[in-house]
């Protein structure tokens, strides 16, 4: 049931773009994105509901493809502060839509 994130890790230079994918084997109701910096608690980025919408602000956005049962997080013109581990949390279309299952995380390192 755990969603699969890819890639597992990525290293960027400042200003480069990155895409993190989150795929599920079950139909998704919502996808939630969080970022966790080393030694800190995860922090909320955004929520997407099924319907294929794209959300975001400034340089971090995300899309949700209901048919493909996947979401992608887009980080453009990355900054040093973007470094951390990104987790997607998924709620499934059947059963308890409040229950959030997180993927294993994608570690992003932005270098100067």
């Amino acid at each position: 049931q755990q969603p699969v994130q890819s890639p597992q890790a990525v290293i960027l230079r400042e200003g480069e773009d990155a895409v993190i994918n989150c795929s599920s084997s079950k139909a998704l109701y919502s996808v939630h994105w969080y970022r966790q910096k080393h030694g800190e608690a995860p922090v909320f980025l955004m929520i997407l509901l099924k319907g294929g919408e794209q959300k975001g602000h400034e340089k971090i956005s995300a899309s949700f493809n209901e048919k493909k049962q996947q979401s992608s997080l887009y980080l453009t013109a990355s900054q040093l502060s973007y470094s951390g581990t990104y987790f997607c949390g998924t709620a499934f279309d059947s059963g308890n839509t409040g229950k959030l299952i997180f993927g294993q995380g994608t570690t992003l390192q932005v270098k100067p």
Partner: protein
Amino acid sequence: GAGVSQSPSNKVTEKGKDVELRCDPISGHTALYWYRQRLGQGLEFLIYFQGNSAPDKSGLPSDRFSAERTGESVSTLTIQRTQQEDSAVYLCASGRPWLAGVTGELFFGEGSRLTVL
């Protein structure tokens, strides 16, 4: 306080002992989650409380694990007869319902780091 508070922040115990971890959610947050995070690993779902509904305990790894929540306030996670593989950071998060049963933004506590010797 304004955030989710967890205690203790660190707990070292001997194999076989029982431990109790506490979570004080943000006032008014009806949803409360417990997750386990092993070193360098992802967030492993343990249990989910939503208001007065029966909790979703499907993530508890064994019957040594249990959790309670008093109304919409404090929650305790109890691990009986601890094993070395229980060593991890236990994270609590709270939130409000958002749309159609979906929980909105989750606010995580700093976690309780459990080390079982």
